[in-house]
């Protein structure tokens, strides 16, 4: 991935339980970044499938995040553990075609500080910007 931080297109799959108000909180960021960002709220991160991740990459995402609840704190028991396994499978598949596995990233939220989905995404984008500038 050669693009600089501000050119990167990002897809964010996330568990709706993380931010019950996500329908509202993500709007400002969507307006701000336009086509650079796409959010995919899931009823639970365990709903994610490797196919969703590959389709997101194929549709042009430079980076795909899957944001889950903290380990041991899944609303539906262990959806976040299943999400982790599915990302690992998709990572191994894209590696087979020469794409860096880091283009798919699991983000396990912290049990302590509860962030809204837009705050969390801004943090991730900020981190990527810093990485691109470094």
């Amino acid at each position, binding site marked *: 991935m050669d693009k600089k931080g501000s050119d990167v297109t990002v897809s964010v799959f996330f568990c709706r339980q993380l931010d019950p108000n996500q329908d509202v909180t993500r709007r400002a960021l969507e307006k701000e970044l336009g086509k650079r960002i796409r959010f995919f709220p899931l009823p639970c991160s365990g709903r994610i499938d490797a196919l969703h991740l590959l389709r997101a990459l*194929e549709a042009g995402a430079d980076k795909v995040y899957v944001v889950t609840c903290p380990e041991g704190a899944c609303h539906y028991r262990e959806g976040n553990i299943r999400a982790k396994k599915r990302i690992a499978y998709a990572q191994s598949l*894209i590696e087979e075609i020469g794409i860096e596995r880091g283009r798919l990233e699991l983000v396990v939220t912290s049990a302590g500080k509860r962030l809204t989905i837009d705050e969390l995404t801004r943090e991730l984008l900020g981190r990527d910007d810093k990485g691109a500038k470094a």
Partner: protein
Amino acid sequence: MITGERKPISEIKEMIAPYRKVLVVGCGSCVAECAAGGEKEVGLLSSALRMDAKAAGQEREVREMTLDRQCVYEFIDQLTDVVGQYDIVLSLACGAGVQAVAEVFPNINIVPALNTTFLGETKEAGLWLENCRGCGDCKLGFFAAVCPITRCAKGLFNGPCGGSRTDCCEVDSEVPCAWQLIVSRLEATGRLDLLRKVHPPADWSKQQGRGPRKIIREDQRT
């Protein structure tokens, strides 16, 4: 159920390398159940192949299609108006499905994307176990529905080898001893007397003795 596993992408790429238009065809039966060749797996592989071609600057058209079954003509027929538009068909069916499609379209290139593996059962989500060799001479009735040919590492017909430890096989400590299962189940169902029967060696001529096998049922034929 027939199980299979996807071949490495490098092997698949090598087979389709000379061709520009690729039709990826899944099978909605056995290989879908074992998460190797159903609609979802067709999508995954097709996406991967399209991205790979794009990254390599190649022009490649990859179309996805899944039949309910690739081993029955009535379903294969759905490909009739489609296959001619493609340079190669990449089939995610078992070996029987790949060959059935090739029989129907002898002038089309058809290659397998899976390694067909065994006849088995879905033990739990994500776990498939081999439990039938298709020997053509089923004796499950004597063995409490546990096949000693398939599930005993030594294929023993007349009792255990004596090497099992904590009910598991000495060859693989994670595999239950087939003979332990047989005896326990026969005991539970009051049929221990079946153990008195001495079985001659399996008659393998019913499996492979005369080349590929066939079943003919006149009442089913047109």
